[in-house]
């Protein structure tokens, strides 16, 4: 069973931009909204666990800071 990993980003703009980059790179992902972050709500990108590292690398290399990575 593939576990989903959530890559937490700092803004919706980064989430939309990140999703486009990942889809272009062949990584299936979706934008999700989070409400259990330290300061309340935010956005992240959900990818399957095996692809999480590659996804985070793509985001960082495109100057999209990864705030944290959450399981599930």
């Amino acid at each position, binding site marked *: 069973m593939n576990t989903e990993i959530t890559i937490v980003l700092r803004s919706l703009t980064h989430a*939309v931009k990140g999703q*486009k980059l990942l889809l272009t790179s062949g990584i299936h992902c979706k934008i999700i909204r989070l409400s259990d972050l330290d300061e309340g709500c*935010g*956005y992240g990108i959900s990818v399957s666990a095996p692809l999480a590292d590659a996804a985070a690398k793509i985001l960082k290399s495109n100057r999209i800071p990864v705030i944290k990575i959450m399981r599930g």
Partner: protein
Amino acid sequence: MERIIYLDNAATTFPKPSEVISEVTSTLRSGCGNPGRSSHRLSLAAANTVYKCRSRIVSLFGGKEDNVVFTVNATGALNLAIKTTLRKGDHVLISDIEHNSVLRPVHSLKEKGLISYDIYTAFEDPDRQISELKKKIKPNTAMICACHHSNICNLTLPIKEIGAFCRKSGIIFLVDASQSAGILPINTENFYIDLLCAPGHKGLYGPPGAGFVIFGERFDEQLTDTFCEGGNGVRSLSPLMPDFLPDRLEAGTLPLIPISGLSKGIDFINKFSPGTIFEKEKRLCTLMRDRLAGSNKIRFYDQKAGSILLFSVSGLVSEKVAAYLDEQGICVRAGFHCSPLAHRKLGTPENDGAVRVSFGAFNTERDVNDFCFYMERFIKKI
């Protein structure tokens, strides 16, 4: 339907391209969620609409999507850019062709005792312009504002050279691109522009209701003041606005409908090779001017060829001329055009201003012929 001859494109362009109208209708019908509030498909679709517009903007002007901050118009953009980046004690230089949307916020900050400002003479010649700026800057000059293209005459400032001067001097460079965005080439990176402000509804052919600021790279590290505090869908438990763009400066629901139309407006102008629309406007404007130049009752206030004609008719106040033209289905603007500094520079009547004709992508030679016909008939009766 009565034929309308629209010659007030400096106020807002009309008509709008059919693809802009279709997009706005489509977004209203089926894509009108609130971006950045929920996780459902309509909200995310709206978020994509907004992001698409940010992308279109940076593809045209340079910069990055995060640093595009939406406002409701260029006035909002200029106020936001000026008031979030200046500090107490700063000195600002503005040109003598600035619109009230630069003059008034700067003057208001001065009246509150926060900043000081001076006015520099605008020149098209880069050497003369830089020489003028060198005479006017002070040790505490923090910002130079430049109206790229006047809204009442065909004066275009050398913003690339001004930008280079500002960058070398460590001064923030703000460009008001209200009349030039979509018409003249602008690149925020190559021109060293720190703050580019523009409306969506003029040369970019979007609907009224959206404008934007592109913040340059210097603001990646330099935190701006906030302008309007409120909800933006992230970090809701914090009483503070986020410390990153664009979220820091975008509170409340964004103007999704005009933003969706603005994307299509940019697509529209991208159909033409660079400069085509401006060349057409200049050609029609020259045709009109040449035809009216023979009348000794018309005085023109700008000798340079361009897309704007500013004139007065002897013995008549400008609003009367505009009212007559409106009766013939011709739309122009009279008075001071919210640009008292430029009117003073051009020497228009102090108590009246002048009549402005401003062309757009959809004007034709027929418009020029009809305008001249009615003006010639009008002048004969005076």
